[in-house]
């Protein structure tokens, strides 16, 4: 009997082992609970993989863009707003990889382990975007594909963005898969698009020139409409005659910039490209991985190739988001935050589930060079494009008309920012297959910048 009693310890050991494993299970389940609950198979929150029970998404003015009621998801009642916000919010099939409803699922559902999915304190997620201005920008893109993005260069907050083509989530077009009009509709061009920069790239070549050519402001360049190298010819849009560096940028002289590019040299031009941050793929604060731009694989000994690269018309491809960072950095004295559009998420009880913080983009341009570049781009508008075009905004910028093979018209680009620190906005706009840079993208930028200006004053 006594010996048997001693062996009872076996049961104690089993019970203790069981107890330990229960603790491990508890720890495992508690620490993974959010991940489990947020699975798209969870019918409490999803229906056929679509998030149906989640908090409200509001724009910077408190306008509701998406909300849930009785297991259904409702979007803005304005179809233009719905189309303009599609890429920012995400689609209901999960084709658009970015999109708050996907990337900010947790902050939108407000899951916490105590209340589970029953959370009566459905959170509200605020965007930095102004949905009305974005919708206006989207409308102005019209039938053209393209995109526009405007951000505060001091804080990184994106106030307006639109990408086209888009579609109405309530009325998905039947021909979305095969109509050419909707080609690339699931791609947010701002984050994932790549464009030939055209003359806007002269801002990069200028940066290289400022950095590497000490007497660049004293040099003059002669344009006879074209310039012949041994292995090719650079064509200019005009016969500009003799120009200073600043005038060459103002008038976007290809001949002058091809010479400047060759004077700098391909390697240093590429260094400036890297320094501008254009080469990077960014992890945005909104959890989107952007498409990395590429300088292009060129023959660095070929003067015509270097020349064409220097005027943004060779193999270089740039991403609008990265371009915006570069613009912000120039405007902001050489450094910039990564632009973002999710501001914060808060439960009805006032608990913050997410709060955006400025994340440094890593771009670091010498502040003196940035300042020079800022003045140069200011002179583009002041001395050449005309301040009247931009209304109340003291604009700095550079237009680009990028020829793309197989397109009837050029892509129209405009990159720029407000000179005035009290209205700190930078922008990048691309209107595809439209024509001259200033006429389309420039005008679009001017309109949106003024709308923002008027709304903020």
């Amino acid at each position, binding site marked *: *009997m006594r*010996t*048997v*009693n*001693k*062996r*009872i*310890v*076996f*049961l*104690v050991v*089993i*019970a203790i082992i*069981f*107890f330990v*494993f*229960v603790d*491990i*299970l*508890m720890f*495992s*389940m*508690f620490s*993974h*609970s*959010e*991940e*489990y*609950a947020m*699975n798209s*198979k*969870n*019918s*409490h929150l999803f229906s056929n993989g679509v998030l149906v029970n989640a908090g409200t998404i509001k724009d910077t003015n408190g306008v509701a863009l998406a909300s849930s009621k009785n297991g259904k998801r409702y979007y803005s009642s304005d179809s233009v707003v719905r189309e303009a916000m599609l890429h920012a919010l995400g689609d209901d099939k999960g084709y658009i990889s970015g999109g708050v409803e996907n990337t900010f699922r947790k902050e939108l559902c407000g899951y*916490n*382990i*105590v*209340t*589970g*999915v*029953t959370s009566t304190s459905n959170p509200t997620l605020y965007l930095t975007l102004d949905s009305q201005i974005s919708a206006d920008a989207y409308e102005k893109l019209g039938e053209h594909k393209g995109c526009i993005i405007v951000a505060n260069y001091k804080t990184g907050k994106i106030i307006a963005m639109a990408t086209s083509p888009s579609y109405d989530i309530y009325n998905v077009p039947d021909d979305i898969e095969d109509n050419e009009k909707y080609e690339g509709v699931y791609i947010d061009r701002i984050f994932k698009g790549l464009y030939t920069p055209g003359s806007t790239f002269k801002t990069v070549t200028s940066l290289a020139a400022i950095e590497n050519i000490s007497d660049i402001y004293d040099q003059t360049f002669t344009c006879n409409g074209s310039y012949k190298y041994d292995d090719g010819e650079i064509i200019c849009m005009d016969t500009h005659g003799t120009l200073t560096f600043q005038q060459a940028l103002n008038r976007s002289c290809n001949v002058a910039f091809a010479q400047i590019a060759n004077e700098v040299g391909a390697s240093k031009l590429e260094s400036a490209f890297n320094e501008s941050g254009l080469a990077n793929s960014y992890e945005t604060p909104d959890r989107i991985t952007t498409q990395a731009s590429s300088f292009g694989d060129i023959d660095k000994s070929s003067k015509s190739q270097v020349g064409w690269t220097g005027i943004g018309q060779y193999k270089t491809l740039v991403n609008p988001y990265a371009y915006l960072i570069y613009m912000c950095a120039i405007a902001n004295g050489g450094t910039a935050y990564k632009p973002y559009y999710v501001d914060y998420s808060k439960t009805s009880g006032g608990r913050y589930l997410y709060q955006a913080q400025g994340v440094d983009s890593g771009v670091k341009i010498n502040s003196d060079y940035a300042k020079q570049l800022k003045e140069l781009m200011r002179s583009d508008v002041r001395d050449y494009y005309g301040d009247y075009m931009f209304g109340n905004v003291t604009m700095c910028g550079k237009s680009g008309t990028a020829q793309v093979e197989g397109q009837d018209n050029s892509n129209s680009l405009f990159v720029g920012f407000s000179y005035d620190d009290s209205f700190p906005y930078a922008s990048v706009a691309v209107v595809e297959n439209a024509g001259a840079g200033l006429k389309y993208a420039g005008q679009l930028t001017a309109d949106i910048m003024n709308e923002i200006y008027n709304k903020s004053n």
Partner: protein
Amino acid sequence: METTKNTRMYFGRPGNFYGFITFVVMIALTAYQIIMSYLVLKQEKDDFAKLLIFFVSYMFIEWIYFIVVGVIKNRQISLEIIAFALSSISLFITASINPSSALTQFASIVLGLFVFIFMIEFMKDTTRTSFMRMPMALAALGLLAITILLASYKNGAKNWIYIGGVSIQPSEFAKIAFVYVGAATLDKLQSTRSLTMYVLFAVACVGLLGLMSDFGAALIYFATFIIMAFMRSGDFRTIIMVCAAALIGGIIILTMRPYILTRFKTYRHIWEYIDEGGFQQTRSLIYAASGGFFGVGIGNGYLRDVFAASEDLVFCLVCEELGMLTGFLILITIALMALGTAYNARYSRSSFFTIASCAAAGMIIVQTSLNVFGVTDFIPMTGVTLPFISQGGSSMISCWGLLAFIKAADARTYGLSLSHTKERRQLR
């Protein structure tokens, strides 16, 4: 027998709070059950009257038991209160998910309670207990053999037989006999012959379960056998050798029948087979997490729509609808019950009760582990029930039967005081 003072656990002894505490626990339990009844009835309008009768009857039975056994007979009834509480969860879940099965579940609990009372009464007489071991062994083997002959395959295992429209799982009842036979054989006879006989009996049982493809049950029987063998021999080497032999045997079976392995191919890969082999486990985890600490409320869950939700997946169903705190509280209760068994087993009337109670508690722990860690993908899912909580009549009755062994090992059950047993032992 000196039953007057020491065993007066409840109202007889001034300054003894056991009685008062038990009364308070009963009130709390009833309050909980009233709330649960209300929440279930609110959603089950069609079966309102029927379910109301079951719920009220259930609480009535609890109070009758408390008054008769606890107050009048002055016995400690904490073990039964735990079993009542756990069983009621199964009743509420069954009523909420399959109202048509609520009667079966209710009847099974009542039947289980009678089995419990009967077994305790039966084991009062140790001579009778010892004498009955052979018939019990035959009963266990008979039950399993009948299953092989009559059962049809259901969910990959051949362990159900149908009698007069009622489906029963004989391997569940055989568990009681298995523990009984093991404890009775090892208690009395130390000869090699009896030990050999018992080993053969255990091998036969496990083998029959293997033939039914009920590997979960086979594993439970095997683990229980190990516990009993250790209790008797105290020899770790033997235990390790038996385990090694079983392991080798298992490997041989798997090499000969590799298709068995396909069952386990999703183990640790459930998220890759989220809509195939990992369907039940992934949904279980997703919905358990959805419940949070306090649950989404009974009837508001989604796991209930998944196959075997109230049986194999019931732990996660409880987590989803009643909350993870309730889920883990159940597991902790079961662990504490085993520790309590170990504590009381020291003062049992004979080593039969010590071995039987430890084997029964061990069996419950092993079965709980297979169920809970299986559904959460810690181990391969074997499809066993969660003791007392899963829907299923046979399983419920068997659990109450096993509980009788635990109860019988507590000397106070038979009106003896713990100190009395101690004294008696010292006299030996």
